[in-house]
């Protein structure tokens, strides 16, 4: 029951919980059990929310009308995340859920490429001209979108790719 309360508290903040997450692994494990998922789903359903659980990630959803400001924010945030994922995939083409990447390796590979298009994408995401700051901002966007999670213990240069990556790739897929 404690996990159910904890799960709702986290999900109601708009966080997408992935099964591979170190930070939320207790909640993810809890929600991965069908009975627990259904139990929370029926609870949130009573207050008008819908618990989404698919492809290894969970989030809360609710239908409703949005202000123009909210819509713009929504569109802009998703576009930035999509561009950020494309940058990551250009450096690590076969990257997938549960891959572990290093920020330092990203910088080395980025430097090696000397790709102008890649540079344009980073500039779209960051106002900085400094490569280290640009990359930090890129990783920050991906963390805030729950695509990457920094290693919680030990090597802070390591980041794990979370299941929420599929959430954004599905959006891209739907555009075709």
């Amino acid at each position, binding site marked *: 029951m404690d996990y159910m309360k904890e799960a709702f508290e986290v999900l109601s903040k*708009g966080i997408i919980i992935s099964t591979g997450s170190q930070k939320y692994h207790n909640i993810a494990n809890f929600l991965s059990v069908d009975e627990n998922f259904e139990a929370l789903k029926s609870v949130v359903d009573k207050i008008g929310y819908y618990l989404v659980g*698919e492809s290894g990630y969970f989030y809360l959803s*609710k239908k409703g009308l949005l202000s123009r400001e909210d819509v713009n924010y929504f569109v802009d945030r998703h576009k930035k995340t999509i*561009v950020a*994922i*494309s940058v990551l*995939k250009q450096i690590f083409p076969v990257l997938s859920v549960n*891959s572990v990447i290093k920020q330092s390796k990203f910088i080395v590979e980025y430097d090696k490429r000397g790709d102008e298009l890649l540079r344009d994408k980073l500039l779209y995401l960051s106002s900085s001209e400094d490569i280290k700051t640009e990359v930090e901002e890129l990783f920050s966007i991906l963390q805030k979108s729950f695509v990457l999670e920094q290693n919680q213990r030990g090597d802070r240069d390591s980041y794990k790719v979370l299941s929420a990556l599929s959430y954004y790739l599905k*959006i891209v*897929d739907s555009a075709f």
Partner: protein
Amino acid sequence: MTHLQLIKLLSEYKDVIDLAYRSDEYSVDIVPQVLVDNMMFIKIGDKYKLNQNYILWVNSILDRVDYSIILGDYEKEHKELIKLKSRYISTNREHYKDEIISVIERIYMEFVYRDKSIASLLKKIENESSLEIDLLIEKANDILEMIGDLVEANLKLESSFIELQELHQDIKLKMMSINTQMYHLFQNISVYIDTLNSFIIQTKDKRRENQRLFKVANDILNEDDIYLDDKLMLYGSEAYYTLKYMRNSKVSTVIDVDSNIGSYLRDALSQLSLERVKKERADRVLPKLKVEPLDLIDIEEIIASLNQNGCDDLFIYLYGLDCIADKQEAFKVYLQLLTDEHIVYSEEFNQYNIKVIRWII
């Protein structure tokens, strides 16, 4: 030099050997001459490169492998076995039997090494993170082809081994000691082929996924992304949740991605367009014609009169009646009587440009 002296030599120069092994091309600029004399290093151009056999041995022990590895099909060993078998049969000399056992052992050890190399190769390719996808698919196909060639070679060796067992009890015992493991090694080849095929399919899917992602990202950068705005706005208006985490307690949105997002979108869009069409049609609907009742005119009486008297021009007849106010009213009654069985149409038109109809008694 004895074997022990060789081990001591390697230990003494372990630093330079390690430096060469960890370099990109397994080579260094300077090495002690003694290592060159003992073939540990071979000079190629300006560099000294580690002995290839040493690299292969260390890689196999450390579970590392290069894409450039060539997997042996043991064709030479197979020919050697056939030759030895023939000589043994014709001479019956023990020497040839011992050589056959030795070659079988060598092939078996090579098989074990080859199996480990293939497993390492698959592990390496599956864990590639920065190699271009096209290159990765090409390499996976090369490995698949190389492993595929081994199937036939394995079958050839297998049948040779079965025949050799009958030559001598010692060969049979040797074969029995390795048979089970050999069987597993042969079986592994099929597993590797399946694994590689799955890997190639998955990597091709990933390539398609990346191509789509890069296109959408480029469109966003080029501001040619109205189609994405439309989709995101549609999702945004359909489903949202609170994003305190990202937006200071303000209500914002995330896409409610269901398992069939494409059909969801199509349905939503088709519903929208349907509503629009309905609305346009509603605007264009003409007002219904106002039907004026002919209460003051007794149609039955007119018909009775016509049936009694008949007429040569129905419209003129009607227009002439006292109960008919004007031409418009006469025409309305005229229309109502068009289907009567007493009517006969003519080809003529009267002075009011109305078709002449006769009423026959």
